[in-house]
């Protein structure tokens, strides 16, 4: 089989203030016709620079140092072009770009122009590369949108990107990239920003279209699960060099290079032994301190005692504005959180799982009292005294805030760039009037060692840290007040796999050292599996299943939970994605569930199917239905 793309000894250097960065340092690989090659590596490994070089859209600071990229278009055999020799703005390169080689980007939310309809943006590629009349163009666009799974493509043509969900935008981008039937599709982290169920749909879509259009795919990813499911060949990159390459079978069954082995060990898997630890690629050294450990006796979990936090029938609706002639009125929108009840025992880690927009973060914000629920009750056990969180006022609320702290998703946005690390970590202490300057400094030092950072970094500012280090600073800040409950809202979803393992291990260690209780919010089931004892699955504002970790993963009852589990790509060739189990993307639509689970005037409520395993189903549903 002929190779569509052959890269030989490619070197791309970036000129930055501090000197030259060898972003791609002698990389060679090929992409055969009609096959899928995965380019794997963590951020900074040069994956994206390679894709930009192939497309001829390198930023100004980048320079192709040497090497060649041969593109052999199967439609016109015998006319190989070396892309590195073409001027990126030349007509010849523009004819290749977007027509014969096209690309899908990572961020569907920002990769489309917000002020042009998607039909306009897709048609643009046709205008540029295919000689069609206006009516034919429109028809081809509608066909393409139908092909990528828009239900009503004739109407979708007129939609603006902000009217579509992330998954639909990514589909529109796929349609745009494929509208000219390219010989090679580059998918640069095409699903990283998407929910797991949507991710599976997009992967399925790419696979299906690849077969239909017989194109080669170069998929760039850090997710080994996607590699195992999609790729024929794998190229592993580390710091601009190829560490290992070969067929997917070779690479997975017999990983040769230490880096790939390390990468495989750093990713949480469902089949990990109880107590097994992830091995981060770069281990961080954590020193035990004495100040905090001495101050805080680890609270004993009393079996049968009251839970640390009990949430009962929590409901919150966000009104949508209805425009009237004289100002806007608040209308009644769908409920973001609908009758949510759960308990978190002392020392427990409850994982809250669900796709974006299902109400996870809203629930967390209500526990923090930064949003007020419409109805419901939250009870916090303050060392034996139950406190009605929603009724707390003034000094009581202030005291409650010390006990419940928050770790944010975005390590870049959650640290004030104008405050030094010391200011950031000691701010909670100042707010709550704890200690004098000296004591706060001692505490900040200890917190830094606790999260594995050098105490000398206290004087630095956030911009000089990587994402993982920033997230550790955020954790240190949350721990400064010695809280009892830590709410972690997607703390690792913005981090690289290698760093993710560091932070997860850190959270696990801190939990056992300080006897912390976690509410761990995530859309990544493998991460939740690694850290949580009990898991609550949320869909469209409601809890649909609550169970102990093992019970949930081994014996999921609710169709939504099953779909979620089925959508996770495993880094394991023996367990490929079962696309049929995805319910064609309808898993998160309550109306598509079987009758026993459907929403109706009668609930359904949560029923116990044994040993605390709760499922939202009708009591009349028989055991067979629940098992099916």
């Amino acid at each position, binding site marked *: 089989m002929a190779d569509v793309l052959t890269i030989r000894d490619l070197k791309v250097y970036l000129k930055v203030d501090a000197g030259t960065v060898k972003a791609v340092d002698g990389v060679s690989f090929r992409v055969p016709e009609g096959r899928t090659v995965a380019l794997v590596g963590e951020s900074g490994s040069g994956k994206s620079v390679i894709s930009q070089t192939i497309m001829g859209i390198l930023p100004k600071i980048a320079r192709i140092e040497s090497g060649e990229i041969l593109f052999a278009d199967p439609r016109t055999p015998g006319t190989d072009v070396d892309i590195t020799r073409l001027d990126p703005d030349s007509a010849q390169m523009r004819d290749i770009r977007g027509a014969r080689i*096209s690309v899908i*980007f990572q961020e569907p939310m920002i990769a489309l*122009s*917000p*002020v042009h309809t998607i039909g306009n943006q897709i048609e*643009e590629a046709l205008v540029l590369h295919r000689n069609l009349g206006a009516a034919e163009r429109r028809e081809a666009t509608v066909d393409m949108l139908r092909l990528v799974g828009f239900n009503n493509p004739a109407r979708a043509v007129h939609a*603006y990107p902000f009217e579509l969900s992330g998954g639909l935008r990514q589909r529109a981008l796929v349609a*745009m990239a494929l509208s000219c039937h390219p010989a090679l599709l580059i998918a640069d982290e095409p699903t990283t920003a998407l929910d797991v169920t949507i991710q599976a749909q997009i992967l399925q879509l790419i696979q299906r279209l690849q077969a239909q259009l017989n194109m080669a795919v170069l998929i760039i990813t850090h997710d080994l699960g996607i590699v195992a499911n999609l790729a024929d060949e794998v190229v592993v990159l580390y710091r601009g060099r190829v560490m290992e390459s070969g067929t997917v079978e070779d690479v997975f069954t017999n990983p040769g290079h230490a880096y790939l082995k390390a990468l495989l060990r750093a990713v949480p898997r469902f089949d990990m032994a109880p107590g097994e630890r992830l091995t981060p690629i770069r281990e961080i050294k954590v020193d035990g301190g004495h100040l905090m450990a001495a101050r805080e006796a680890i609270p004993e979990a009393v079996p049968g005692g009251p839970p640390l936090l009990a949430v009962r029938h929590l409901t919150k609706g966000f009104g*949508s504005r209805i425009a009237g002639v004289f100002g806007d009125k608040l209308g009644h929108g769908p409920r973001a959180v609908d009758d949510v009840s759960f308990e978190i025992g002392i020392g427990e880690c409850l994982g809250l799982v669900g796709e974006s927009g299902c109400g996870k973060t809203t629930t967390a914000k209500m526990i923090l009292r930064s949003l007020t629920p419409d109805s419901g009750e939250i009870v916090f056990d303050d060392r034996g005294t139950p406190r009605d969180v929603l009724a707390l006022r003034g000094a009581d609320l202030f005291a409650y805030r010390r006990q419940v702290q928050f770790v944010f998703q975005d390590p870049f946005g959650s640290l004030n760039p104008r405050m030094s690390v010391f200011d950031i970590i000691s701010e909670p202490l100042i707010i709550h009037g704890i200690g004098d300057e000296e004591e706060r400094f001692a505490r900040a030092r200890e917190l830094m060692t606790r999260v594995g950072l050098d105490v000398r970094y206290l004087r630095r500012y956030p911009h000089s840290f990587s994402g993982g280090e920033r997230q550790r600073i955020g954790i240190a800040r949350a721990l400064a007040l010695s809280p009892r409950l830590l709410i972690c809202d997607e703390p690792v979803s913005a981090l690289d796999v290698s760093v993710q393992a560091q932070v997860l291990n850190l959270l696990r260690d801190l939990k056992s050292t300080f006897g912390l209780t976690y509410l761990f919010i995530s859309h990544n089931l493998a991460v939740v599996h690694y850290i949580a004892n009990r898991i609550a699955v949320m869909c469209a504002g409601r809890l649909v299943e609550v169970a102990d970790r093992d019970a949930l993963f081994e014996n999921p009852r609710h169709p939504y939970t099953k779909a979620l589990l089925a959508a996770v790509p495993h880094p394991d060739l023996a367990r490929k994605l079962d696309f049929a189990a995805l319910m064609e993307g309808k898993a998160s639509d309550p109306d598509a569930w079987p009758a026993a689970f459907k929403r109706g005037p009668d609930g359904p409520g949560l029923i116990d199917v044994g040993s605390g395993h709760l499922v939202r189903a009708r009591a009349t549903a028989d055991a067979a239905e629940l098992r099916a």
Partner: protein
Amino acid sequence: MLKYTFRRILIMIPTLLVISFVTFAIIKLPPGDFLSNRIAELQSQGDKAALEKAAFLSHQYGLDRPFIEQYATWVGLWPTEEGFSGLLQGDWGWSFEYDLPVKEVVGDRLLLTFVLNFFTILFTFAIAFPIGIYAAARQYSLGDYSLTLLGYIGLAAPNFLLALVLMYFANVQFGMSIGGIMEPKYLGQPWSWDKAMSVLQHLWIPVLVIGTSGTAGMIRRLRANLLDELQKQYVVTARAKGLPPFKLLMKYPLRMSLNPFIADIGNLLPSVVSGSAIVSVVLSLQTVGPMLLDALQSQDQYLAGSFLMFLSLLTVVGVFISDLLLAALDPRIRLSGGATK
């Protein structure tokens, strides 16, 4: 959209009422008024006839009545002895200083001001956009640097100085008098074809002088906006489609960076009018600026009030127009206006 337009027009009514009240209150804020100052002056001189006239006017315009009544009379919501007669009825009041109805004093000034500012804004946009786009597309090139330098000079040089320099050179080099907004012989004459042409001939100097700093500022902002937009992911997407650079620039980043400029149209009017007051004095233009300044100094309340209301009306209408344009241009504003998070 129709509903929105209708609502916006309705909202303009209370807005203008509030503005008129604030305007009137501010004009009345300093102690005394034109007539009482005048009366004091006349009393010291003992001119009987003038005193009587002053007393008559004072009564006629209700200067002896409480503030709120005066305000309502001026707007036309309170009857005088001859019935309602205020702004709403088209009576702009009496200029004490000129001893004429405000309408006659103002004459063509409002129209000339409007024409001058309209062309100034047009000039600003017409010059700033091509240069700004060029500077952004060729960042750090020789052209970018030279235009940037020119822009800074334009920003830094005071307008009136530029006016003086131009006048001086026109006079010394070409023996031309470029002051005024038309040939002196047409002043106070009814509008004719020749008069209009004369205005157009004289217009370019004040347009150039008043527009320079605005143009320079707009070039800088447009360049910065465009450079921001050029970093965005959707630009990369469009490049990856194979779009040629110039077409790409015009279709995506330019369109995206337009919003602040359109939103500015409403604010541009008053800032141009107040910014051009000194230039108008220097060039002796028959526009609103210099006369407004005089009227405020001499507390000629109805004259000043009329000018201020005219400017407010321009602003309110300008903001309304820019809002409609924004909604027409940006689907995010048009389609998601009704929803909140």
